[in-house]
């Protein structure tokens, strides 16, 4: 029985961020998107959905929206490839979910004396895994677009695939700098390496060591999520989007994928550049202040509190990055397809190569 509880707690703690991301952050994101844009644009925003007279600033809209999508007709257009048409959104959401497997959301938690890494799967090739997942995400979009038998969807799909694979190159090369600095492709190791302080006051975060890579990664990351200003594949006022033929939850899954990818990119930005779960300055203080006495039977008090703080720090940083992405989304107009490709191949790619060279030289001489 005790073993079972320990096991359950262990897995729960490993999955806690994923559960929160899927069940809390992504539904709330739909609300945040509406409400934040409303605040930016001097409007009221969503506030009508109510349960028993309770409106909660329109928070229930996320619920109402998903209920609506579930009860919409899911129809397949004439001439579509039925199997692939049904499969494509599932592929999309599957790989968006899989991306969360390697995100570390806290340091090790000690459960009945055993250290447990706060990461669903502790892959030592986490970074490569992330690229594999990212690469696969293109399939959901392209297949869905192709299977729809629709010219607009096809245009959107082609744009999406061209855009996503182009920016994957930039993302990949920009992260080489991070690997050079932290000497690992394991996301947990990379995060741990960001725990020290530079010059005694500056956290040794990626954003301070690799500022150029941060901007490249952010830009390319937003491009991967296909959000404004990189939403040429959707471009609702231009080509309506690669999911033009999808109704009901078919569309819903693409929609959810978008939000999950936004969270995923935010998580990765935090992990690589904003110190991941590191809570600088207070982690040492917590360890000293609280004793390492047993807590709730299976935890160590100071380790437990530290883990909670780290987890909160991680969630906070992720929300901050998402907030930034939303602000960008509601400020800028949309790129045109050729502008996107130019930015990717002629700006970001050379810059990220330049970043590697400079980083390598500095690392070599300074160590």
């Amino acid at each position, binding site marked *: 029985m005790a073993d079972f509880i320990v096991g359950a707690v262990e897995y729960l703690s490993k999955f806690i961020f994923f559960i929160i991301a899927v069940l809390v952050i992504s539904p709330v994101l739909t609300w945040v998107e509406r409400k934040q844009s409303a605040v930016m644009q001097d409007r009221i925003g969503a506030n009508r959905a109510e349960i028993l007279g309770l409106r909660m600033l329109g928070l229930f809209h996320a619920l109402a929206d998903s209920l609506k999508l579930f009860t919409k007709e899911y129809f397949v257009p004439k001439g579509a490839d039925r199997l692939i048409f049904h499969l494509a959104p599932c592929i999309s959401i599957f790989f968006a979910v*899989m991306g969360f497997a390697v995100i570390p959301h806290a340091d090790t938690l000690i459960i009945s004396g055993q250290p447990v890494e706060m990461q669903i799967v502790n892959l030592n090739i986490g970074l490569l895994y992330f690229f594999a997942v990212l690469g696969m995400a293109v399939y959901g979009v392209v297949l869905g677009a192709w299977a729809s038998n629709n010219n607009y969807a096809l245009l959107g799909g082609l744009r999406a695939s061209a855009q996503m694979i182009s920016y994957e190159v930039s993302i990949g090369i920009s992260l080489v700098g991070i690997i050079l600095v932290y000497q690992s492709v394991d996301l947990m190791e990379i995060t741990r390496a960001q725990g020290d302080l530079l010059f005694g006051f500056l956290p040794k975060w990626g954003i301070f060591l690799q500022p150029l890579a941060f901007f490249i990664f952010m830009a390319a990351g937003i491009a991967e999520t296909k959000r404004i200003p990189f939403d040429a594949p959707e471009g609702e006022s231009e080509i309506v989007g690669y999911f033009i033929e999808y109704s009901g939850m078919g569309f819903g899954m693409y929609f959810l994928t978008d939000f999950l990818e936004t969270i995923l990119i935010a998580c990765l930005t935090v992990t690589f550049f904003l110190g991941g779960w590191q809570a600088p300055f207070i982690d040492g203080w917590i360890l000293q202040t609280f004793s390492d006495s047993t807590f709730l039977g299976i935890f160590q008090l100071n380790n437990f509190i530290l883990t909670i703080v780290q987890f909160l720090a991680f969630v906070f940083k992720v929300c901050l990055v998402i907030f930034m992405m939303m602000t960008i989304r509601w400020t800028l107009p949309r790129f045109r397809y050729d502008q996107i490709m130019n930015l990717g191949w002629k700006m970001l790619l050379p810059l990220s190569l330049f970043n590697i060279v400079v980083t390598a030289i500095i690392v070599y001489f300074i160590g």
Partner: protein
Amino acid sequence: MEKLIGLLIMIAVGVGLALVFWGLNRLLGPKSPNVVKDVPFETGRAPISASGRRMAVKFYMIAILFVLFDIEMIFLYPWAVVFRDIGAVALVSMMIFIAVLVLGLAYIWKRGALEWQ
């Protein structure tokens, strides 16, 4: 092996989520197909050209470029991990590698492969 249990759970969750979304919608949603609804939506008129045709070569070019640069990127990763252990040799050899890469980029740029016009 134990490590991969988490991964298996994630796969199950991913597949399950997709199945639930898809299945519930099929279950709860109405089904009332009709001729007009079934025609692919080309903003109000029946499509003239059926899609599913071959696409312009340009997109093929992008795919090729992607494969090239992605593979080279993968070469950079192990190098970056062990860079400090190897030292000068790594620096010089990878500088040459990147120089070749940049040359390649400059070449395709010059040849107009990066012109989207």
